[in-house]
C-alpha cells in the first residue's frame, strides 16, 4: 500500500513538472512572436502587412514560408531563415535595399532567375522585406 502511495506521489511530481514546462514553453513562444513583430529592419516596413502581402501574391506557390498560407511549393528555396542569411539569390548581400529591389524585379538583380517580377510596388516590397527579416 505504501509502495503504491510512493508511486502516486512520484507520478504527481512528474505531472506537475511537465505542466510547468509546457507553460514556460508556451509563454516563451508567445513572447518570441511578439518580438518578431515589434522591430523591423526595414524603415517604413510593417512585417505583419508584409506577411499578408506575401500570402496575397501567393509566394508560397514556389517557396516554403513560415506562417504564410499556401501550397509550399518547391520551385524556389525555402524562406525559413531568410532573415539571417548573409546573401540572397545566391550572391547578393542581404541588405534591406537589395531585398526590396529583388522582390520588385528579380531578373534585374539576378539575371537568369526564374522568379518573375509581379508588379509589386515599392511600398509593398518594403513591407514584404520587413517580413522577410523576421524569418530567422
Amino acid at each position, binding site marked *: 500500500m505504501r509502495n503504491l502511495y510512493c508511486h502516486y506521489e512520484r507520478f504527481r511530481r512528474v505531472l506537475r513538472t511537465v505542466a510547468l514546462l509546457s507553460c514556460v514553453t508556451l509563454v516563451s513562444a508567445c513572447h518570441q512572436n511578439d518580438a518578431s513583430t515589434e522591430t523591423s529592419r526595414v524603415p517604413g516596413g510593417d512585417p505583419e502587412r508584409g506577411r499578408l502581402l506575401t500570402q496575397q501574391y501567393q509566394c508560397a506557390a514556389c517557396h516554403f514560408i513560415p506562417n504564410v498560407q499556401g*501550397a509550399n511549393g518547391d520551385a524556389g528555396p525555402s524562406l525559413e531563415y531568410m532573415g539571417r542569411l548573409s546573401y540572397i539569390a545566391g550572391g547578393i548581400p542581404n541588405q534591406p535595399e537589395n531585398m526590396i529591389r529583388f522582390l520588385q524585379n528579380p531578373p534585374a538583380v539576378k539575371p537568369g532567375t526564374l522568379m518573375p517580377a509581379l508588379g509589386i510596388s515599392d511600398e509593398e516590397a518594403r513591407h514584404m522585406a520587413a517580413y522577410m527579416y523576421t524569418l530567422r
Partner: protein
Amino acid sequence: MSTANTAPLSELQSVLHPAGADAAIIHQFSWVLFVGGTIIFVAVMALLALAMRRGMQKDARPVRPMLWIFGGGIVFPVVVLTALLTWSTWRSVELAPQTSHQALTISVTGKMWWWEVRYRDPANGREIVSANEIVIPVGESVYLGLTASDVIHSLWVPALAGKRDMIPGRVTGLNLRADKPGVYRGQCAEYCGEQHARMAFHVIALPRPEFDAWLARQAAPGLAADTQLLQRGRAAFLEQRCQACHTIRGVTDSPENMQQQIADTSRLGPDLTHVGSRRTIGAATLDNHRGTLAGWIADPQAIKPGVFMPPSNDLDGETLRALATYLEHLK
C-alpha cells in the same frame, strides 16, 4: 488579387447565402430542419430531466403512461412528419424543372481533378472549350450537361443549387440560375481521388451583354505573341510539347504544327487558349498570375501532388519566365 481572407461574401461557398431560387428553397428547408430539430431535441431533454426529478420524489403524482406513449410517441410524430411531408413536397414542386428546354446549355466534364467546360458558339455552333470556370448570364436558366471521363465526380455550387453526380458514360443534368451577378465557388462533392479537395471551380454570373462579349472573346483564337518575350514563351510551349495535353487554339492547330503531326486539340489537360482570362489555376488551387504559373509549371507535384502534369526541370529561368508571361498574356 483575392485570397480566401478578403473574398467578398458572394465568393464564399455557402449554403447559407443563397443566390438563386432553387438554393433559396434548399436554404429554407435547411433552416426548418435546424430549428425544428433543435426545438424537439430541447423539449425531449426537458421531459427527460422532469422525469428524473419526479423519480426522486416519493410523493409525486403518477404519470399517465398511455397519454405520453400515444400522444408523444404516435400522434405527435405523425402530425409533424405529415405536415413536413406536405410542405416539402409543395415546396419541391417549385424547384426549377431539370431540363435543357429553353435554357442555355453548357457541357461540364469532371476530370481528375479539374473541370472541362464547353460552350456552343451562337455564331457558328462550334464548341468553345474552357476550364474550371462556368460563366453564365444572370437571371437566365442555364442547363449544365454533366458527365465524367474517369471516375464519378459531383458538381456542387451551394449558393445556386443542389448537387448532381457526374458519372462516366452517362449524361446527367443540372439547372442553375443566378439572381444576381457575382462569383460563386463550387467544388467536387464526391470523393474522386488524391486531389479531390483541390477540385474546385467558380461560377461567374455576368449581365447578358457582358456574357455575350465574354463568349465572343473566348471564341477567338489565342492572342498573338507580339513581343520578343512572348514569342520566346510560345516557342517554349511548343518545344516542351505542352500541346501533347493542352490546346491553344491558333497555336497548336496552326498549319505548320499540323504538318509536324503535333496533336491539335488534345483534351488531356485544360484548354489554355484563354488561360490568362481565368481567375485561378489548378482548379481554383492558386490565383492566376505569372508567378503562380511559373511555380506550377516548375513543379505541379509540389503544389497538387498526384496531378497528371509532370514537373518541368529542363527549362532555364528566363525561358520559364517567358512561358509564364506568355500564358498570363493569353487573356
